[in-house]
């Protein structure tokens, strides 16, 4: 008698646990919706529609999407798509990002706060990508992770360049111009040596920024010695009058109306790095002025000259028994103003006078203390 052997049925293999990953194959931006759809067993299109709908509810889906883009890993390499498709995805990323920037303020309505945050963030990210493309030559292709990495590296280079521009400007401005120029030469040598050793292209932009900062100071003749801020000098006698007034950056007013200036010439040296220097004199005092302005303007009782590397020389005579202030001004960036009244300063414009010049349309008395006035 044959005994029947009971057949042993093997249990069906357990499906692997559904791990949430970003999809490599089903993606529009970073594969987040495709990954969620696969993990939940629903069509990714439904997830996408839901995500777009939630965008109008204060933009919550955007925040969740960005968080998942950063925190959720991509699925394994096996399902990697061909590079041409990845490039196409990158183009879609860029286009959708631009579309969001343009349309978000219109579409979001109540979510304008999100739109307000979105625009600068998108702009910063784009600036980072373009910077990295310029300094490394790496194309815009790649997935969302590559885009974020390149954008971040570009931003690091951009911020570093801005800091080096400032360092060069300040270093040269406070008197370390030789050291700052030496740093530019050193940066150039690093590039020359690095060109034979490794990848140093990313150094080009920061080194250029450093050179630019130093060269602006050199070209404008800026000196930041003398501090920063507002200075208001009102000497009460000619004895209290110094022969030199200096300010690094800010606004300086020298009011000589109470100085009781002696007959003859009173020499005066004004030095300003950046900002505005204003000389106020009584109407019976003649002003002879000589000024070098790196970039900016000179305005002596309404006679103006403005532009880059402005040279000003006006030497009227005061007459035999007259009083004359002989001003020698050196301004890096900014302006030199000479007036008879503080109310005529540029910051006290009078619309009723039809002010439209850089310091208003001056209609006060001219250089009345001079013999030919």
């Amino acid at each position, binding site marked *: 008698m044959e005994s029947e052997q009971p057949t042993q049925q093997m249990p069906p293999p357990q499906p692997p646990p559904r791990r949430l990953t970003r999809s490599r194959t089903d993606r529009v931006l970073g594969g987040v919706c495709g990954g969620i759809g696969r993990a939940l067993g629903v069509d990714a299109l439904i997830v996408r529609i839901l995500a777009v709908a939630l965008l109008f509810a204060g933009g919550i889906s955007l925040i969740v999407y960005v968080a998942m883009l950063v925190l959720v890993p991509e699925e394994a390499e096996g399902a990697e798509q061909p590079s041409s498709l990845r490039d196409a995805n990158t183009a879609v990323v860029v286009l959708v990002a631009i579309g969001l920037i343009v349309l978000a303020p219109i579409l979001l309505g109540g979510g304008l706060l999100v739109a307000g945050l979105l625009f600068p963030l998108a702009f910063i990210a784009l600036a980072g990508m373009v910077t990295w493309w310029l300094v490394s030559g790496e194309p815009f292709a790649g997935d969302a992770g590559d885009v974020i990495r390149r954008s971040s590296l570009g931003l690091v280079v951009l911020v570093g360049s801005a800091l080096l521009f400032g360092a060069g400007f300040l270093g040269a401005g406070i008197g370390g111009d030789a050291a700052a120029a*030496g740093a530019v030469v050193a940066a150039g040598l690093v590039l020359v040596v*690095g060109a034979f050793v490794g990848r140093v292209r990313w150094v*080009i932009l920061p080194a250029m920024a450093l050179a630019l900062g130093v060269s602006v100071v050199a070209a404008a003749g800026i000196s930041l010695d003398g501090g920063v801020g507002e200075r208001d000098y009102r000497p009460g006698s000619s004895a209290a009058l110094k022969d030199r007034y200096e300010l690094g950056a800010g606004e300086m007013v020298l009011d000589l109306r109470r100085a009781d200036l002696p007959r003859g010439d009173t020499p005066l040296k004004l030095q300003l790095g950046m900002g505005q220097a204003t000389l106020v004199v009584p109407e019976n005092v003649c002003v002879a002025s000589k000024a070098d302005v790196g970039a900016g303007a000179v305005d002596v009782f309404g006679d103006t000259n403005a532009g880059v590397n402005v040279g000003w020389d006006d030497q009227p005579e005061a007459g035999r028994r007259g009083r004359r202030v002989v001003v020698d001004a050196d301004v890096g960036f900014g302006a030199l103003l000479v007036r008879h009244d503080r109310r005529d300063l540029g910051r006290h414009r009078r619309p009723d006078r039809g002010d439209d010049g850089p310091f208003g349309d001056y209609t006060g008395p001219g250089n009345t203390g001079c013999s030919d006035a």
Partner: protein
Amino acid sequence: MRRPDVPALVAGVALVGFGGVLLLDAVDTLHLTFASVVPVACAAMGATLLALGLSRRP
């Protein structure tokens, strides 16, 4: 010998030259103005951009 990275080399040489000019200004051998700095800076950046552009050609 390893082939040099031409854009980095060009930028480096340009910066050494530009830095030298700035150094001469700092020791009062030259007197730089915007009229003289801008062409020099444009030449340095232009040479670098040219080298970058040519290096990307297939």
